[in-house]
């Protein structure tokens, strides 16, 4: 069922990772991604993987949930793999027929890219699974707040993100319901050629959009009724405050990045 999609879903918990300041986690994610792109050897990948698995273990997020969240990524992964296998020039040819050449280098590169994407996505999941969307947007807002000086609507953007995240499950459920209702009237969503399939989406998309607009309208009224008037003069229940834990996390981040850079410099 559509409801099972876990993208952007938060798993409440009380692990060390959960307790980190969202800003720390965001910066750590950036550090992690940079490190991932600096890492070019299997050894440095091994280090990164150990770090990632360590984080997952500490966070106590069930591995199954992460694997399930990967499902929508399969197409991108396959595409990346195929592209790399066929497009990479190399010396050790494993297979050659017609205009296609498969080389050892190509296969290695493909594997490399797939692992990189997998680790990238898993890292991002770890952030969204362990951080409530509100904490996440608070963190982003706080990190980006210097941009307010150049008139970037930082608060508005984070509010929008927060609401979008809040309504993803609601709209997914709604889509599910509309699909069932139209199927009950004999709508055929599976068969037919591409054009027919696109046409079959109209009975789903029109009600979905109508409903989304209605919800947006009602939500806007409800927010106004609760005295929402933009970011000016707004306070927070949970103030972001760095603790010792965050300092330690930053240290780990610096060590990780430095380690991976060293490995890259020494060409390992």
């Amino acid at each position, binding site marked *: 069922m559509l409801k099972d999609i876990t993208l952007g879903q938060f798993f*409440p918990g009380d692990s060390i990772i959960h307790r980190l300041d969202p800003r720390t986690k965001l910066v750590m994610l950036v550090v992690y991604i940079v490190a991932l792109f600096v890492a070019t050897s299997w050894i440095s990948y091994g280090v990164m993987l150990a770090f990632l698995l360590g984080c997952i273990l500490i966070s106590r997020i069930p591995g199954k949930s992460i694997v399930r969240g990967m499902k929508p990524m399969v197409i991108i992964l396959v595409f990346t793999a195929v592209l790399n296998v066929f497009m990479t020039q190399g010396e050790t040819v494993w297979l050659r027929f017609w205009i296609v050449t498969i080389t050892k280098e190509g296969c290695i590169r493909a594997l490399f890219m797939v692992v990189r994407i997998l680790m990238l996505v898993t890292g991002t999941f770890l952030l969204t699974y362990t951080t409530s969307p509100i904490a996440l947007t608070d963190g982003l807002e706080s990190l980006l707040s210097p941009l307010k000086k150049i008139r970037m609507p930082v608060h508005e953007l984070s509010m929008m993100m927060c609401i979008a995240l809040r309504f993803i499950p609601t709209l997914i459920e709604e889509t599910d319901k509309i699909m069932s209702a139209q199927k009950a009237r004999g709508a055929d969503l599976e068969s037919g050629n591409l054009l027919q399939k696109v046409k079959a989406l109209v009975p789903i998309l029109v009600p979905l959009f109508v409903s989304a607009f209605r*919800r947006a309208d009602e*939500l806007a009224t*409800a927010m106004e009724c*609760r*005295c929402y008037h933009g970011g000016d003069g707004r*306070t927070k229940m949970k103030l972001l405050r760095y603790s010792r834990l965050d300092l330690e996390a930053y240290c780990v981040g610096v060590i990780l990045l430095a380690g991976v850079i060293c490995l890259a410099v020494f060409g390992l």
Partner: protein
Amino acid sequence: MSEAIRVDHLNYAYPGVEDTPGVAVFTDLSLTVEEGSFVAILGSNGCGKSTLAKYFNSILLPCGGKVYVCGMDTSEDDLLLKIRRNVGMVFQNPDNQIVANVVEEDVAFGPENLGIASPEIRRRVDQALQQVGMYEFRKHAPHLLSGGQKQRIAIAGIIAMEPKCIVLDEPTAMLDPRGRREVMETVLKLNREKGITVVLITHHMDEAAKAQRVVVLHKGDVVADGTPEAVFSQVELLHKIGLAAPETVELCYALRENGFDLPLDRLDIEGCAQVLHDAVRT
């Protein structure tokens, strides 16, 4: 006793599209709600009851006449925030009024907008959640809760602003009997224990029967106003405008047509059974 809400000769028409004239919703409506009271506003679909609610906290502004909330004129821009923190609104669809992904963060949304200091917000959020009996759910994701629970979260989000008055616009229309009971019990408790003025807009007769005062709206006009007993005994009037009385009254009414001599003001099971018992025995 002072007035929580005063509507003075309210006049409003939906703006017409292009050349067509607008549709009049209220021509000359006056109504006051006493502080600390529990008033139910009853009416069929399209009688203007939901539109009326939107005047109580400046979502709509009168074309003619005035609406005062706790003595403040709702058409004054400077008072907007003060009015809205004093009159909280709860709407029909619980899904479309919950902003945040975690229960307690949502309840904190209102106080945060008011610029209240963080420890005080924490205190208010915990207190509000306890009052609606949802404290143990404070870390949950709202979309996984039942309709009645979601609606109680929405109420907590309002009382965390510590308003003098709560306006609920058909809060139980989308709930099952259990959810309806939960919401009604919460609302009654807030009125009784905290002295919060409650305006409940509904078309469920049994809910209106729990109020201290019932106002019946029809085509933008007040057609009946009084205690539930006084209003619901006007069965013919209610039928004429597309409403019904609670079943106990409808039963007594039907029996009267059949030659029984019964009062029409028994809204509860016990009272109704008592008069029926006496009527059959004699």
